[in-house]
């Protein structure tokens, strides 16, 4: 897409110049995209040549581009160019993997971020409160980016339009007990590494004068999706999953087998 635009802009600035584009496939998906490429070819007379470039070398201060025109029976093409532009692929940012891991959002094998559901939740991620817009999700053009960004922004607005956040009914809770323990959580934070949603936070239990007594886990109710992985990991059984609590499932098993 950007190649057609480059060629077009170049022709607008330098009227007597020639622009050639070697291509194999033009994936002109989306509204008005194919028309855009046709316009570059027909109105701005950019020369599109279907074929690969085999060689680029310098001769008398010019760059000689050797290629084949496969639509004209693999005819050899030689162009004396002043400048050669390599149209590279759109790839994800090198730091995207690290960012995705930090945010606990999923990403595909090309390191583009994945949406929670391609049809039903196209701008949300698996982590509550994190939305996607633009080329971080896949290479896209400006209209697509703007529409996705608008969708993401409206999702954020919907989140803020209410005074209270709706959370999942089934979420995990770390218990709180009377002092001096405050919680039976031992603070090993195994749950923190196990949680797919980054929903486990560290809470410092302090005395009245602000001295930290101990650090225990706390589940962020807005982020927890209720998978219960932390519950099975907890050695001291200090986390429980509402709706699937240890007591409830145990009672169920007891009843089934009695």
């Amino acid at each position: 897409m950007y190649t057609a635009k480059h060629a077009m802009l170049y022709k607008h600035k330098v009227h007597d110049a020639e622009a050639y584009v070697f291509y194999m496939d033009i994936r002109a998906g989306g509204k008005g995209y194919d028309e855009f490429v046709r316009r570059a070819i027909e109105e701005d007379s950019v020369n599109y040549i279907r074929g690969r470039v085999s060689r680029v070398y310098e001769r008398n201060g010019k760059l000689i581009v050797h290629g084949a025109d496969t639509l004209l029976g693999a005819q050899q093409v030689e162009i004396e160019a002043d400048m050669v532009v390599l149209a590279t692929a759109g790839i994800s940012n090198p730091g995207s993997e690290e960012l995705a891991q930090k945010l606990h959002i999923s990403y595909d094998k090309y390191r583009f971020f994945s949406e929670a559901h391609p049809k039903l939740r196209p701008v949300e991620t698996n982590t509550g409160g994190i939305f996607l817009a633009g080329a971080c999700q896949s290479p896209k053009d400006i209209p697509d980016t703007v529409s996705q960004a608008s969708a993401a922004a409206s999702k954020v607005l919907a989140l803020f339009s209410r005074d209270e956040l709706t959370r999942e009914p089934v979420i995990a809770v770390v218990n709180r007990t009377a002092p001096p323990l405050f919680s039976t959580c031992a603070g090993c934070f195994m749950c923190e590494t196990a949680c797919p949603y980054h929903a486990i936070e560290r809470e410092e239990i302090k005395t009245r004068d602000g001295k930290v007594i101990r650090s225990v886990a706390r589940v962020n109710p807005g982020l927890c999706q209720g998978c219960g992985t932390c519950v099975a990991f907890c050695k001291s059984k200090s986390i429980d999953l509402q709706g699937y609590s240890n007591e409830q499932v145990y009672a169920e098993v007891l009843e089934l087998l009695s």
Partner: protein
Amino acid sequence: MQALHQKVKELLESGKVQVVIGYGEGSGGKSRPVFIRSAADAAKLVWDDRCHQNLAVYINKPEIKKMGKAAIVAHPAAVRTIVQMIAEHQLSSGAIIVLAVENDTLEELTDNSSLEVYAQSHPVLFPPFVVKEIEDIAALSAAERFEFWQNELEKCFKCYACRAACPLCYCERCIVECNQPQWVSVPSHAQGNFEWHMNRAMHLAGRCVSCGSCTIACPAGIPIGLLTIEASRIARTEFGFEPGISCDASSAMSSFRNEDKETFIQ
């Protein structure tokens, strides 16, 4: 030992630490843990081949914490334990001075990286009788193993000395004290004992540094250390996870790899 006495004297005199956790002369020719609080008592410390107990278990005891900053005499397994405790957020870095001892060598370790380097270069070696026990059990058939553990665990009367001796059993409330639901049956019948030892092994999988303190502590003489050693062996062979060598390693059980084995899953 001379060097150890000298070092402890220095640490206490300079006020760098207020207490040193170490081994002392016990009754019946055994060693026992001692807590040295004045330089004059430094000579009470001993270090020889009777000193097996993992002293790291005392680090977080409130009584010790109250005394001030501590130094600890640690054999290689205890050093690994301390590293593991740091990785599990039970000990902040630099909170304790570790006097790592092995044979005639003494090293003072204060920061995380030196602890890691020491732990990595000093493997925990099993005494020959433990190696033999491991091999003997491995040679048994499934039915014989069942028989073996049933007979051994029958002796358990759930005193939880194994739990008290283990520095990595640090939960304020243990799963056995959880009674809603009663995960581990209270009486020491075969089922309850099985549940307790299975839980202990599962909890220590990928965490047990194989110090053997639980076996030493068991008054019934059950080789319970073998269970946690086996759990850690599984974590090592299946997940390539070695406990107690990295201060910021994630735990073996709460992490995963895409290529974890699943041949047993249909």
